[in-house]
C-alpha cells in the first residue's frame, strides 16, 4: 500500500477514537524524550472519517507525545483509498507486532475487535494467524476472556502480578470484586497456582457462607495480616492462604492442628517423622526413620520405643 505522506493539523486527529487502539494505556513518557532528541522518525498512520476528522490507526503514542510537546501540526501517512475497518485493524496489529510482541491484554483487545469481521467457523484460525498466536483454542478463549476484566485486573496482567489462569478465574466476577483480587495480588506476590487456589478459596467461602466476595477479601483478618509490620510479604501471603484455608475447611484444618499439637507432645527428634494418612481419610500412618550409623539408629530405636509407650500416640491413632 502506497501511503500519502503529508502534514495535518494535530487538532484534526481525534485522539479519543480508540477503535484501532490495542494498548490499554498510552504511556508517552519515553517517546517524548525520543522525539525531543531526534524528532518524529516514523509518522503515524491515520484515516479520514466522514466528519473530516482523522482516526489513528498506528501511532497513538506518537500523536499523544507530539500533542504533549505542543506541536500544532504533525507529519502523517494516509492510505490512498479509505481502507476498511478490518484493514485498519490488521495494519494496527502488524505495525505493533513489527517492533514487539503484543501483550496479553492487547491480544485480547485485538480478538474482540477482530471477531465481528469473521464468520464463527473461521474466527479462530484467521485471528490466531493474524496475531501469531499458537493454534490452541483453549488458550485462545482464555486470552479472549481477559477483555472482560476490570481496568486494575488488566493492569495486574500487564504487570505480571495476576497470571493468565487467575485472570480467567476472575472474569465471571463483578469489577469491584476483580479489583479486590488485583489489589491483593499486587500487594502480596503469589505464584500462579497460589493465585488460583486463593481465588477458589474466596469464591467458595463466599458461597458457603452466603457473603460477598469483597466481604471475604476485606475481612478484618486479611486486612490485619496485610497491615502487619513484623512479617515480610512472603510471610503475609502464607498467612493469608492459611487463614482462607482454615475458613474454607474448618474441620479438616482443626484436625490437622490437633494432630500437630499431639505430634509436638510426642517430642520426636529430627530423625523420626510421623505422617498421618492424607486428609485423615485412610487409617495407615507412616513413620520415616533416618540415620547415618548404628549409633543413630539405636538412638532412634529408643525414641521410637518411647513414642510407642506415649499415651499421646494412642490418642492420635484412635
Amino acid at each position, binding site marked *: 500500500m502506497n501511503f500519502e505522506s503529508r502534514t495535518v493539523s494535530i487538532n484534526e486527529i481525534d485522539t479519543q477514537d480508540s477503535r484501532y487502539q490495542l494498548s490499554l494505556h498510552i504511556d508517552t513518557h519515553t517517546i517524548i524524550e525520543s522525539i525531543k532528541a531526534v524528532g518524529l522518525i516514523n509518522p503515524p498512520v491515520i484515516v479520514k472519517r466522514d466528519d473530516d476528522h482523522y482516526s489513528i490507526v498506528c501511532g497513538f503514542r506518537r500523536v499523544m507525545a507530539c500533542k504533549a510537546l505542543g506541536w500544532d501540526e504533525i507529519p502523517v501517512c494516509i492510505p490512498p483509498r479509505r481502507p476498511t475497518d478490518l484493514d485498519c485493524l490488521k495494519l494496527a496489529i502488524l505495525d505493533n507486532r513489527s517492533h514487539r510482541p503484543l501483550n496479553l491484554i492487547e491480544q485480547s483487545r485485538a480478538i474482540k475487535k477482530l471477531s465481528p469481521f469473521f464468520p464463527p467457523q473461521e474466527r479462530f484460525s484467521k485471528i490466531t494467524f493474524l496475531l501469531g498466536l499458537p493454534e490452541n483454542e483453549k488458550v485462545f478463549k482464555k486470552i479472549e476472556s481477559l477483555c472482560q476484566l476490570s481496568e486494575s485486573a488488566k493492569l495486574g496482567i500487564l504487570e505480571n502480578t495476576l497470571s493468565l489462569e487467575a485472570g480467567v478465574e476472575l472474569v465471571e466476577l463483578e469489577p469491584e470484586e476483580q479489583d479486590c483480587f488485583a489489589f491483593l495480588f499486587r500487594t502480596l506476590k503469589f505464584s500462579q497456582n497460589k493465585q488460583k487456589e486463593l481465588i477458589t478459596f474466596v469464591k467458595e467461602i463466599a458461597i*458457603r457462607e452466603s457473603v460477598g466476595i469483597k466481604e471475604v477479601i476485606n475481612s478484618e483478618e486479611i486486612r490485619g495480616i496485610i497491615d502487619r509490620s513484623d512479617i515480610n510479604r512472603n510471610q503475609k501471603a502464607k498467612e493469608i492462604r492459611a487463614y482462607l484455608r482454615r475458613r474454607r*475447611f474448618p*474441620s479438616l484444618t482443626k*484436625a490437622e492442628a490437633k494432630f500437630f499439637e499431639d505430634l509436638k507432645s510426642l517430642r520426636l527428634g529430627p530423625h523420626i517423622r510421623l505422617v498421618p494418612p492424607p*486428609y*485423615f*481419610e*485412610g487409617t495407615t500412618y507412616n513413620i520415616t526413620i533416618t540415620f547415618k550409623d548404628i549409633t543413630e539408629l539405636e538412638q532412634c530405636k529408643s525414641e521410637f520405643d518411647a513414642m510407642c509407650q506415649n499415651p499421646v500416640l494412642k490418642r492420635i491413632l484412635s
Partner: protein
Amino acid sequence: MSVHISRIYVDQGITHLPETRAILDRLKHVPCTVVFDYKVVQDEVLRGDDPVTEGKRVLFLTRNKGAFLKDCPGTKYYNCCGYKILHIGTYCYMDCSYCILQTYFNPPVLQYFMNQEDLLHDLDRILVSKQGPIYRIGTGEFTDSLIWEPWTDISMRIVPYFAAQERAVLELKSKTVHIKNLKYLRHNSKTIVAFSINTPAIIKSEERYTASLKSRIGAAAMCEEWGYPLAFHFDPLILYDGCEPDYREVIRYMFKRVSAENIVWISLGTFRFMPPLKRIIQQRFPGSKIIYGEFIPGLDNKMRYFKPLRIDLYKKIVEWIREVAPDVLLYFCMEDDDVWHTVMGHVPEEKGGLPQMLDEAAIRHCRLTRTVS
C-alpha cells in the same frame, strides 16, 4: 414431573421388533429417525452447548452389544455391597445436580436396549440352575429403574422372570412414582421396590423433575400394599445448615407410612463425586451449594466429606432409624471399616462381609433359597 423427549433415534437393526413399534406408538408425538450408526446420535447430542441436557431429550432405542449383567463398580478400600447391575439402558431424563451419569458417559444419552431376549438369556446363564450363589441384581445404577415404565414393558418382563426363581432378587431403584405397572405383576417377593430418599429441601434444589418425598414414600406404601418388599437409599446424604432436623423428619415420615418389617435394607451414603463433576455442577446448577462442603480426595479418587463429618451425620441417622426400626439392615454404600466400626459398632467382616449381610436380608425378606453349588 415433566418429560421432554424431543427426538427418538432408532437403531436400524431393531426396527422390526414389535417392542420397538410399541414404544414408538406410545411416543408417537415425538419425531423419530432411523439411524445406522450410534455416531449420528452422538454428534447430535454433542452439537449443542450443553450435551448433558441434550442427552436427556434424545431417546436412542438400540441393542446392547455388551453384557447385560455387570458387577457394581466398587473399589478395594471401601466396602462394596457386591450387587450386580442389570444393564437395561443408560442415563435419565430427571436432572439431579449430583448425578454421576453426567460424567460417566461421553456423551450421556438416554438409551434403551431392545434386545431383551439377550438380557433374559444372560440372566438364565446365572440363574437357570437351582444351585449356586445368591444374587442381588439391580437396574438402577446406569439409569433410574422406573423411568422407562410409561413407554416400555420392562417391568412386565423382568418382574415375573425373577418371581419364577429362588436365587436372586431384583431391586428396582427410583426417584419416580411410576409404579402402576407393578400392581398386578406376579412378583413372589423377588422384586424389591426401592426409593432414593432425601430431604424436601434437597429434592427441591438438587433433584429436578423427580417426584416429591411424599409421593415417593406414598408409592413405597402402595408397593408395600401390593406385597413388594421395600428398600430405601439415603444417598447422597448432603450436609447443609439444618440438614439434621430435616433428615430426622424424613425418617419419621417414612416410618409413619411404611412398616419396618417390610424393609429389606436401607443404605446410607454421603455425597461423593469424581472431581470433573464439580465443573459440571457449577455450570449446570449455578445455584447449587452442594459441592462447597468440606470435601477431601478419598482413596477411590472421589471427593468425599471429611471423615469426621460423615461419621457425625451417619451416627445420628443410624440412631434415628434404630429408634423406630431396630431390626432393619442398615448399611453404608462405599465406606471403610473405620466408619463402620465407629458408627455401627462392627465391621462387615465380623458378619461375613457386606455382600453376605445383604444376602441374608434378601433370603429373609424375599424367601430366597440358599443352596450350595
